[in-house]
């Protein structure tokens, strides 16, 4: 079709559109085939050189954007980015430039971890962007494409102080333009990064931060969030150098957000350097249940523990239960003091959760005793979670003792729940890991009351298996077991142990899949 000389412009445009659609739909298959991918890239590049029709160029450039993938080394895309650079430098057409910048951004985001910061690629890209940000005229879509590209470049590249000041000064002047606010703030976020902050950079940042704070009342949620992130990051870098007046202005501008309890992590650099400044906002901070801030305010003497507990009791216990428990466990109240209030009520459940965070081995006796007395199922489960939490901090000593205790009782489910909770709090290897896996598998040989108990056991086993390759091997070996329930646990454990961040190359994942699938 592309070589057909009888095709008119419209037919050529339609052909490139179809090619783009095919690539979009079948990209996941194409990308697995290196030869096909690069022959397609070369084909598109050749077609781009032949065509002068803008729409056709745009479609073909969009094809290139889709074909960038980190499955292959960055160096293989040399011809592609050479062409895109040339296009950005030479073409004045808005649509073509916008897509070309989008491709540069895509290349950046795909390869940011693989390209060295001092590469020729970054040097030429930075030079290109310096020019673009200085003139910053023309169509809106190009401006946004340039800003987005800039943000993505700085996401992976350590920015020199001179470059940072240059870009910040140029961006500061443009923050009043509504349509560009979000990409500017995103770029700003990237630019601030860096351990060193020169006085020149601090000065520009102070001005630009006050401008960014004006976005906090915006109806645009994303702009709000990014602005807060940008201010937060700026304060973390230069907080101590901002004037008192600027800090007060920032706090007041963000007060309504705290009031909504939406984004409470805002004041971190201030609470670290000058917690007394946050006194007017202390009640709002307690309501946010952000433990770090509350603990800081208590240690600085801005608020006292009893006032904190009083405010926490007034919060929505159902919705914020776990966070309140964590807060109670972080403000210096001891386990024995907490246990006095551990009753079969909603507040009691919060207290039990807090015991889990502060208690040690000595808290286990009272917690097990509580299990006997509590009637509300949710509260009993909270005790299991608290015991799991306590054990997770001393697995080496306590897991063995717990297994021993479990062997002497009939109700083994409680102990399985405790171990499940324990792994949730700490997934580091520990001495009794193989014994615990074997214990769980041995328990599964018995007939459980409900099928769901096998799933809870599978969850425990799966999570334990992913702690270390040895543990995984131990579990996988049970795929050959003559006992049906052991095999059931192995079959189900993979789905519970697997997480999005597990590497697809993980040795034990391969072992697992082999045992399950082939």
């Amino acid at each position, binding site marked *: 079709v592309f070589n057909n000389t009888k095709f008119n412009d419209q037919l050529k445009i339609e052909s490139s559109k179809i090619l783009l659609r095919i690539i979009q739909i079948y990209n996941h298959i194409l990308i697995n085939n290196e030869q096909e991918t690069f022959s397609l890239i070369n084909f598109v590049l050749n077609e781009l050189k032949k065509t002068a029709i803008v729409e056709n160029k745009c479609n073909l450039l969009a094809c290139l954007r889709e074909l960038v993938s980190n499955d292959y080394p960055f160096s293989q895309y040399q011809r592609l980015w050479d062409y895109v650079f040339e296009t950005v430098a030479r073409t004045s057409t808005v649509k073509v430039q916008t897509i070309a910048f989008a491709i540069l951004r895509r290349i950046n985001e795909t390869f940011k971890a693989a390209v060295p910061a001092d590469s020729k690629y970054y040097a030429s890209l930075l030079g290109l962007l310096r020019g673009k940000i200085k003139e910053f005229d023309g169509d809106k879509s190009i401006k946004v494409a340039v800003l987005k590209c800039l943000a993505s470049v700085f996401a992976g590249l350590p920015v020199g102080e001179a470059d940072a000041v240059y870009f910040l000064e140029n961006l500061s002047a443009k923050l009043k333009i509504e349509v560009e606010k979000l990409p500017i703030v995103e770029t700003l976020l990237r630019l601030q990064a860096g351990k060193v902050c020169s006085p020149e950079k601090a000065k520009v940042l102070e001005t630009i931060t006050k401008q960014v704070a004006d976005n906090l009342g915006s109806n645009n949620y994303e702009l709000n969030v990014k602005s807060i992130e940008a201010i937060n990051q700026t304060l973390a870098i230069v907080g101590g150098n901002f004037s008192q007046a600027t800090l007060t202005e920032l706090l007041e501008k963000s007060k309504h957000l705290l009031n909504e309890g939406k984004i409470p992590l805002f004041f971190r650099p201030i609470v670290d350097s000058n917690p007394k400044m946050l006194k007017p906002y202390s009640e709002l901070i307690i309501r946010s249940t952000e433990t770090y801030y509350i603990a800081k305010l208590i240690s600085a003497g801005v608020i006292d523990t009893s006032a904190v507990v009083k405010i926490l009791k007034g919060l929505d216990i159902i919705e914020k239960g776990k966070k309140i428990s964590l807060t109670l466990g972080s403000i210096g109240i001891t386990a024995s003091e907490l246990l006095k209030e551990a009753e079969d009520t909603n507040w009691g459940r919060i207290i039990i959760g807090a015991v889990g965070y502060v208690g040690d081995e000595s808290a286990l006796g009272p917690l097990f005793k509580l299990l006997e007395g509590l009637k509300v199922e949710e509260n009993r489960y909270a005790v299991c979670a608290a015991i799991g939490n306590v054990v997770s901090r001393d697995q080496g000593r306590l897991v063995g003792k717990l297994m021993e205790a479990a062997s002497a009782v009939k109700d083994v489910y409680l102990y399985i729940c405790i171990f499940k909770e324990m792994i949730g709090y700490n997934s580091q290897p520990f001495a009794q890991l193989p014994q615990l896996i074997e214990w769980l598998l041995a328990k599964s040989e018995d007939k459980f009351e409900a099928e769901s108990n096998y799933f809870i056991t599978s969850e425990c086993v799966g999570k334990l298996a992913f702690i270390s390759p040895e543990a995984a091997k131990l579990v996988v070996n049970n*795929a050959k077991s003559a006992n049906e329930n052991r095999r059931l646990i192995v079959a*189900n454990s993979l789905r519970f142990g697997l*997480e999005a961040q597990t590497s*697809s190359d993980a040795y034990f994942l391969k072992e697992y899949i082999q*045992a*399950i699938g082939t």
Partner: protein
Amino acid sequence: MGNAVALVGDGKVRVREGAVKSLIAVAQLQPKALKDYSSNRDFWKCVVFNSHINDDLIATIDYGLCKEVRDEGKSLRLESFNLLQILVTRLTLEGPQIDEIMGATLHRIGTPPSMQRARVATTSS
């Protein structure tokens, strides 16, 4: 099957179902880990087999006044189809596998639920 212990082809239906559910999790979270299996005929055969109605898993329980026809393989079939659906969109397939999967899918589409029920009843009576 390349390995006699593969749980997706286990003799017990609940074990097979667990294995299929785990493979779904892998296909969703780590499809690359299954890349090598795209050309493994035994693997596909097994998944396709699990998506078929299996007469051995249909049992009639006689309560005296009434009878219940229970299909223990229903959940396994649904999960197997879920797995097939995810795999065909994430892996590059070869001709014979496509034919096999098409065959299984068409067979399923060609057997509407009412007929499936009738088939279950006929088998159990």
